[in-house]
């Protein structure tokens, strides 16, 4: 069956050779064969200059450029070849503040280690099935960070701080 996935070009950014191999093998299982590997964000940026990439899987903690900085570059650089590219951040750092930092950098999906095929495929499915709107505002460009619309909400204020702003006026 022609899956449609064979045509995709993926970039795997991970400093651990075993994790890179595993991610490559799992993408291969999906039929994705055109996979570029990089061991840190800087190498990934160079790879992105040379080729069109449809999907990025990146680790968070890497040196000299980590996954957050890489994501910000991909989203915000004027020379970024595709600022809308889906980015899945895969990391063992699952502390809330790190997840929020990844979200605020502009990642599309967050995947906690240990990796399972099921979880990785679920993230790719989510990207394909429910592509998110992108938001450009002061200090942020990336996928809409709100996952859910509130049906009966009509106002522009969405956060507690916004309401404090209203109270102060």
């Amino acid at each position, binding site marked *: 069956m022609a899956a*449609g996935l064979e045509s995709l070009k993926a970039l795997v950014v991970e400093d651990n050779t075993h994790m890179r191999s595993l991610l490559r093998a799992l993408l291969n299982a999906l039929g994705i064969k055109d996979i570029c590997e990089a061991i840190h964000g800087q190498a990934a940026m160079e790879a992105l200059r040379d080729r069109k990439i449809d999907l990025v899987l990146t680790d968070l903690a890497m040196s000299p450029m980590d996954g957050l900085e890489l994501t910000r570059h991909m989203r915000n650089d004027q020379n970024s070849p595709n600022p809308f590219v889906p980015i899945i951040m895969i*990391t063992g750092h699952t502390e809330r503040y790190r997840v929020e930092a990844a979200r605020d950098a502009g990642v599309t999906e967050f995947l906690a280690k240990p990796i399972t095929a099921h979880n990785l495929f679920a993230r790719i499915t989510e990207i394909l*099935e429910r592509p998110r709107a992108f938001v450009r505002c002061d200090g942020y460009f990336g996928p809409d960070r709100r996952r859910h619309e509130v049906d009966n909400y009509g106002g522009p204020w969405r956060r507690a701080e916004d309401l404090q702003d209203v109270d102060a006026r």
Partner: protein
Amino acid sequence: MPKIRKNAGGAQIITPDGYPQMMSKPATARALLALRSAETAAKAQVAMEAAIPPMRAAILRYVDEMEAAGRDLKKLFAIAHEIRGFAETAGMITTGRIAEILCRYMDDMERVDKPLDTTIVALHASAIARAARAEEDDVRMGEKVAAELAALVARRLAEAH
């Protein structure tokens, strides 16, 4: 709905129709079928299983490095982070969980700018080493038992014929 609009807060919203998607809609439908197929799941399972032996060997090398790191806390954290990253994927569940606890402890203490209790770190490092080697021994034992049983069955089958 327009592909690009502004919300009340002034943010520009670009709907999925307003930017290039990974693939066309027909190709997406085919891809979703593939993502959910038993064939893909079976291939992924093979890939996961093939990854386990080199990962287990790598974990044991990390354990050796961790023991050699002594009181070098930065190095210990880096190694513990690597171990927690894929020990569970390699089937070394206990090892991964202890590494996770150690990483969280070290990370949290750094965030609140408090000194690490080196005894706690050493206890975790020691527990990671023991768990990793025990889990490896369990696998070896399991493989040995399986091999011996297979040999026994083969002998009995040969006798029966």
